[in-house]
């Protein structure tokens, strides 16, 4: 009995296609991404129970002790893994965290807990292929207690308004409000009217002893009144002004020296590549735009990403401004 001619043809096609795919796959392996583990220079100093959780759920990406599963080293998966590890280490590296200033160490640790409790970390893709890597509620409580214990001391115990009074007096004398403020590198404009906008939130940040007032422009206030904030409409600008909390000698921590103002400007077309928001931060009384490259935008989006289902906004606005 002879094999039909078209069977032979299909067998040939499959044979050659399989060969090509196999060759291509092998060729990819020549270009597989190799992840190096640089020296551990300043590892986090934390109690064993905390470190054990970090090692189990975070260290694969956020340390210089990356341990890969066999499938992580196969291209093209290895490329994605290498990209994730590189980005993760840049954001937070437990093997080098001790090299950061103390204030920055606090900031990244609080941010890490935030990312975990909002479900953004470990990454869902990582959790899928590494079962058991998710942080359990009990483990999260251990991390929260540890990180809370690292918060800076209560500023209201001191009497420390001199610096902020001086900064304010100098600013009034210099008539600095007439100065032109530059756009960010990404082209997001500063909006000087923010100081006249209405308060939609206020946060006492105990992780870094700052107080932050969140203000909305008229479009934002209208959107709040009309319950249209997910997504916020085009034209919305949300500003967040930040001051160091300074003790006034009476047990209060007051909005002291000015740190920065940040603005999220909604323009779904202009800022399409940055999730529809223009991200800007201006530092100090001189309002110097922060960031020399697009890194700031990425840092902003990374931090706000757990709130993507709330249009990337941390603030739950108060209502009643109209």
């Amino acid at each position, binding site marked *: 009995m002879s094999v039909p001619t078209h069977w032979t043809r299909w067998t040939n096609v499959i044979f050659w296609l399989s060969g090509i795919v196999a060759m291509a796959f092998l060729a990819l392996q020549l270009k597989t991404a190799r992840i190096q583990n640089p020296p551990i220079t300043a590892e986090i100093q934390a109690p064993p129970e905390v470190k054990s959780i970090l090692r189990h759920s975070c260290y694969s990406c956020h340390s210089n002790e990356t341990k890969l599963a066999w499938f992580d080293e196969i291209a093209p998966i290895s490329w994605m893994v290498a990209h994730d590890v590189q980005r993760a280490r840049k954001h937070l590296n437990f093997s080098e965290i001790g090299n950061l200033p103390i204030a920055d160490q606090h900031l990244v640790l609080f941010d890490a807990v935030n990312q975990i409790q909002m479900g953004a970390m470990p990454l869902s893709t990582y959790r899928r292929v590494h079962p058991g890597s998710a942080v359990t509620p009990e483990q999260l409580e251990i991390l929260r207690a540890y990180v809370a214990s690292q918060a800076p001391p209560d500023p209201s115990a001191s009497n420390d308004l001199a610096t902020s009074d001086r900064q304010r007096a100098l600013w009034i004398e210099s008539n600095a409000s007439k100065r032109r403020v530059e756009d960010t590198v990404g082209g997001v404009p500063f909006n000087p009217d923010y*100081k006249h906008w209405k308060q939609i939130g206020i946060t006492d*940040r105990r992780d870094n002893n700052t107080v932050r*007032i969140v203000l909305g422009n008229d479009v934002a206030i209208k959107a709040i009144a009309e*319950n249209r904030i997910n997504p916020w409409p085009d034209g919305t600008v949300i500003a967040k002004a930040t001051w160091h909390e300074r003790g006034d000698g009476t047990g209060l921590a*007051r*909005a002291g020296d000015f740190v920065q103002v940040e603005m999220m400007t909604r323009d779904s077309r202009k800022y399409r590549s940055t999730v529809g928001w223009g991200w800007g931060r201006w530092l100090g*009384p001189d309002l110097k735009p922060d960031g020399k490259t697009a890194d700031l935008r990425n840092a902003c989006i990374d931090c706000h990403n757990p709130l993507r289902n709330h249009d990337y906004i941390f603030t739950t606005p108060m209502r*009643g401004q109209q």
Partner: protein
Amino acid sequence: MRHIVRKSFMLAGICLLGASGCSGIHHQGSNNFNDAAALSGSLPYNPLQWSVVTSAVSRSDATVYTVFGNGEAVGFARSSSEGNYPVGSIVSLVTWTQRPSPRWFGGMIPGAIRSVEFASVLSGDDHRPIYLYEEYQGSPLKVVTSQRQTIPAGRLAYLLAQRGALMP
């Protein structure tokens, strides 16, 4: 004028309740808003419509306040270190209890209103300023103190000592 504002404020409160009850159209959940911090009741003015003067936190009481001002008050508060608020100024100090932010570990956000205070600088009969202090507490907010003073003292003096936090 005060009567109209009071009515508008109550109307705003009713609209707020209405809005929270029909939030399904745009899938806008009420957990998007901090309604715990809402001002409800009968106030002479709505300080949330005004600009911010400054703010402070009491960690021991777990409260936070924002000082708001009408146009006259804010203009003075931001440009002066000495002197007195001009006639026509109204300064309002709104105090909230604090609660942990559900969206930022380490952040405390406003919870329920503790009190709303007003210090008004009025023109007296002899063209010298006269001062009115009012305090509102409770839920809904009700007036608990209302007094006129010719020389500011106590909380009235405290409100009128507030200066604008730097907002460049």
